């Protein structure tokens, strides 16, 4: 189960939970756990701070104070789902039945490099430039 922790961000491959990226870990996080059966409890600012970290969002103290009760309200509202009997129901991930869509493995023209780099915040004309990731490199 523990790998679900980073599912949302890891899926897109931008924020993989690798050691090189520091604090993210893949163990289940007990400080986030507040699900106790069917009733969601109220979130604390500490928990919201933790979720913000997972989501790679820097929040101001003011934002944190405002978001905490708002998120709690929504979670209390969605808790109504727990009253629905769903034991024998298959989850529905898509509105239409989705099948694997295959195409011939043929080389095609792709975006020219200068166009791909045109929107980059920082590039040297050949690559996207990012801050140094590996210490001492």
């Amino acid at each position, binding site marked *: *189960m523990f790998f*679900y*922790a980073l*599912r*949302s*961000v890891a*899926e*897109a491959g*931008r*924020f993989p939970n690798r050691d090189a*990226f*520091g*604090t993210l870990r893949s163990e*289940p*996080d007990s400080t*986030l*756990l507040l*699900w106790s059966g069917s009733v969601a409890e109220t979130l604390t600012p500490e928990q919201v701070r933790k*979720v913000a*970290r*997972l*989501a*790679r*969002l*820097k*929040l101001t103290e003011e*934002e944190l104070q405002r*978001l905490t009760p708002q*998120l709690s*309200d*929504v*979670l209390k*509202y*969605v*808790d*109504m*789902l*727990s009253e*629905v009997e*769903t034991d024998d*129901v*298959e*989850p*529905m*991930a*898509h*509105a*239409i039945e*989705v099948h694997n*869509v295959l*195409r011939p493995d043929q080389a095609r023209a792709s*975006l020219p490099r200068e166009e791909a780099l*045109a*929107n*980059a*915040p*920082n590039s040297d004309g050949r690559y996207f430039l990012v*801050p*140094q*990731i590996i210490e001492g490199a």
Partner: protein
Amino acid sequence: MSLTGQSTAQLRQAFAEGQATAAEIATAFLDQIARCDETVSALLHHDREAALARAAEVDRRREAGETLGPLAGVPVILKDNICMRGVPTTCASRMLENFVPPYDAHVVERLQAADAVVIGRANLDEFAMGSSCENSAFGPTRNPWNPECSPGGSSGGSAAAVAARMAPLAVGSDTGGSIRQPAAFCGVVGMKPTYGRVSRYGLVAFASSLDQIGPFSTDVHGSALLLETLSGHDPRDTTSVDQPVPSYTEKLDRPLEGLRVGIVKEHFGEGLDEEVSAAVHAAIDVYRSLGAEVKEVSLPHSKYSVAAYYIIAPSEASSNLARYDGVHYGHRAESFENMVDMYETSRGEAFGEEVKRRIMLGTYALSSGYYDAYYLKALKVRRLIREDFDKAFAEVDIIAGPATPTTAFRIGEMVDDPLAMYLNDIYTIGANLAGIPGLSLPCGRSDAGLPIGLQLLAAPFEEERLLRAARMYEAQTDWHGGCPDLEALAGSAGEST
């Protein structure tokens, strides 16, 4: 009648018969933008010269005797979350303020092949998250019927632009009601097609299993015409459905024989405004008078749709928006300590409050220990919601009901209460979860003069039936001809120029 007062069909005819050139039509609508948009703020940006050049090109090709497409010379406004090569696409976000897509969305290719003239880019709630257009980083759009009120959202700019006759047609996207709710608030026709009917290639992703592009228009015919232009298979969107596209306009004026109209008792319960309820009941009476059989159907799980949606949509959003990392495109913070801090600061600076709220909700719902309780549970309830619709559509051809619980609310009324705002989508969200087509068309006005929308829903890929049923009602009433006081909208702006 002025060109801006004409329907899409009338404009096409005027162009086809040589009564107006594409340049004249484009000029009339661009002038209308110049007159009204200072008050309405429906558009985020537009390039008058580029639009006129495009119109002149259409005129030149007509003079050369070339065969032109079905939307030749017709002005269209595009929601600013649909990519157009070389033209900014901001999603009403600081994150994409300077983003210029290097490619065209599928629907943009379709519009260009149809010889339409894109004349402006419409405001929206940031990344299409919201129901009021107040979440735009560049300021709210105002409802042309009452500038103190919201046009709805997230496609509020598209709806307001059509209502204020800045274009006869607009393109929006609908993830939980983002076309139908603003169409209802602004007194225009707006339609969400079946999931997969229109390619999402080039639509900036919010919640990929729910997002669908669709048309806005002043009348049902306009939406039918625009939908048949936008629809069709596109291998670049793997959820795009490879099914033939019927001509939605061909039989549009032919009434449906033996139409069975369902009304959902859960749609007329607590929270529904009395004026909206009365207008919708009156509309259902129109169907009765046309010989339709009206029967009650039940959608017992519909009361869970907002709850399921606010797990599923934010979960998908938290994943989709992880791509905004300040590396490939979008905002990058000026100062940061390291790579992770660059991500966090860039995202913290450039996303607005509602976007942050949804990313947080989604991240929480997908986090360790919660996935089963929230996300998986919501997906199971989603199936029950779809099965309710399947059962209902075994008994009726369309479902009729209110598009929104109330008429347009005031700007600022709900900004501090996100949950109240979410509940505004209670009648529209089910169609997204189930993937079915839905449409809102004008069916009345409140005592305060605000439009009321009738929502019609149909089974998957029954767009033709849905549009014909809508046209049956429209042909009996005058609500679609209604227009806000454009002189008053132009008033203040006119004096300052």
